[in-house]
């Protein structure tokens, strides 16, 4: 295996990291403010991408307008889920909340074929073509679309993180994450914070799904399932209790999987998940997680 092959593999799979980072950001935000693992993250995103695909391919809408509408719809769906369901289920136990999101997965997955039909949509790339370049005598290339995905993901995640640490909203999120009751007593409107997190999660998910579809070319009901599972794995690997841990996990997972696949493409998934399992067994709070103190 030459260095060139490895670098090229990383470049060819970089878009997966971009997509996963966006999805994981949504999962992480919801986890920190609602204290539940949102299994519906992938499905909220799928609704958005289906809307975009249906609007552009069936009704011939402008692609950018379709993308915007898809993102807005997922945004509103996230808001709706929080306001109508999660907010009402405050007294439900942690596992109960998890189950509610699983129920939502089942509902949305069943509704999508009813609304959008059962035939998968095709989805074109935003930009065609490759960029060829060479570093130290090695010829490498990256698809322009892949670069776009990386760029969009980097910009969105950077904006979210800057707002997390330097805006009033970010302060609210961090306060809610550390202790919801105390935060609400200090005058933070935790309801708005939580609702915002859900809607941003929906929006981020939709962007991730649209970018994913633009690279893979098709839109179907189960396209975000593996992203969802990997998003959870990334969060567990990085540590749910930090904001940046899941993001680092989300970058690591697809890249590692791709590199392992050079050596052994058949078992790359098994090897990757087993390694994550081992890491989590050794460090149950994840790579960057803080140890939490248990009170009796």
């Amino acid at each position: 295996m030459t260095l060139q092959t490895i670098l090229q593999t990383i470049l060819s799979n970089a878009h997966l990291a971009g997509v996963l980072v966006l999805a994981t950001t949504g999962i992480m935000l919801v986890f920190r403010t609602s204290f539940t693992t949102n299994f519906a993250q992938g499905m909220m995103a799928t609704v958005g991408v289906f809307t975009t695909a249906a609007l552009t391919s069936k009704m011939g809408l402008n692609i950018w307008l379709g993308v915007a509408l898809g993102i807005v719809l997922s945004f509103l769906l996230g808001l709706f889920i929080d306001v109508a369901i999660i907010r009402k289920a405050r007294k439900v136990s942690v596992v109960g909340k998890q189950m509610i999101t699983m129920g939502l997965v089942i509902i949305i997955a069943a509704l999508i074929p009813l609304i959008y039909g059962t035939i998968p949509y095709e989805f074109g790339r935003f930009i065609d073509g490759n960029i060829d370049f060479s570093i130290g005598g090695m010829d490498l290339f990256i698809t322009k679309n892949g670069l776009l995905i990386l760029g969009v993901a980097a910009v969105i995640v950077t904006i979210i993180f800057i707002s997390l640490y330097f805006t009033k909203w970010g302060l609210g999120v961090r306060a809610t994450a550390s202790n919801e009751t105390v935060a609400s007593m200090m005058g933070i409107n935790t309801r708005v914070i939580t609702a915002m997190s859900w809607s941003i999660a929906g929006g981020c998910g939709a962007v991730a799904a649209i970018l994913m579809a633009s690279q893979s070319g098709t839109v179907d009901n189960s396209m975000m399932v593996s992203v969802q599972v990997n998003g959870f794995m990334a969060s567990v690997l990085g540590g749910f209790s930090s904001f940046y841990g899941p993001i680092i996990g989300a970058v690591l997972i697809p890249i590692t999987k791709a590199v392992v696949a050079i050596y052994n493409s058949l078992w790359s998934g098994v090897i990757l998940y087993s390694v994550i399992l081992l890491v989590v067994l050794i460090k149950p709070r994840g790579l960057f997680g803080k140890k939490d103190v248990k009170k009796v």
Partner: protein
Amino acid sequence: MANEYRKELINDRSKKAKQIVSHPLFGFVILTIILAGVQLLFMFTEDIISLTVSKAIAQTLIYAIVGMGFAILLGYAGLASLGTAGFIGLGSYIAGNMLKLIPFPVPYILIIGAVIIAGIVLGGVVGFISLRIEGMYLAIITLGLSEILLELFKTPNQFTGGASGLKSVPWAKLAMFYEMDREKMFFLILGVLFITIVFTINIINSPTGRAMLAMKNSQSAAQAMGISILKYRLLAFVLATIYAMIGGALYVTYLRASNTSSWTLALSLNVLAAVIIGGYRSVWGVLMGTFVIFGLDLAVLKNIDFFNKYPGSSAIFSGVLIVLIVMFYPGGLIRLFADIKTLIKSGIEKWKVYRYGKDYK
């Protein structure tokens, strides 16, 4: 004198009848007999009960076995797992390969035994993992474990058949010679279900069940009372895994095929949904939940043209039910009966007060 003796005899008889009726297993025996009757009806005339319904009932019963294990895990030990589908799948592949690869006829008890041993090993591993990782993390880690298993199934090899799965598994032999077929398998499933029910009820009502319940309510308090967390967590996971694997073995010997597309997250979610909807604290609840989630879907909804046109859309009912029940009716559907009973009782009481005045007693 003779008259009194007769009275006593009648009294004695009615007492005995009451004892039989109030026995905790009485209802399950009746249920088993009814289900066997349905199958007999199907075997003699296909007019009333079609093959689809018979198949649907058998599959539902298999998932009820799996659900029972899950109920012990979730309702009694308080551990959430999303690895169920992977475990069922593994059980099905083990049983299917035993039937396919071993040249001489394999007795069924050997298949069940092998599956149970595999269940103990795998359940023990997951149990040890659960000692380190708790709560929501555990659900995600078990999901990861299920993904590992699914990847293993999907990888093309001679044991799992890759993405196309196991096909045309031969019928099992009950003893060395008695060959099964689809009709006879139904009764075997029913028998296994009954044994599972008896076993589960005994576990739940034994010190083991109570220790698990204590562990669920407060781990620290349970530990302080001398309950070994290690022992009961391992036991809960081992039991749930064994149940799931037996379910898998029954599945592959009944349907004679095992497909990777069956063992995805959706199945784990459905088992979870069944247990939650029915009520995870009682065996009746689990049975009810599986009939609502799997039975209704397989036997009724899938045959309606509208849902046939849009595959997967019939699941919307179970999704809505999960959300509503978790939010507003945490005891599950099984609580419905108790609630109706108290409603009727209080209604009768009110009517009596109205009819005879406040001190009618």
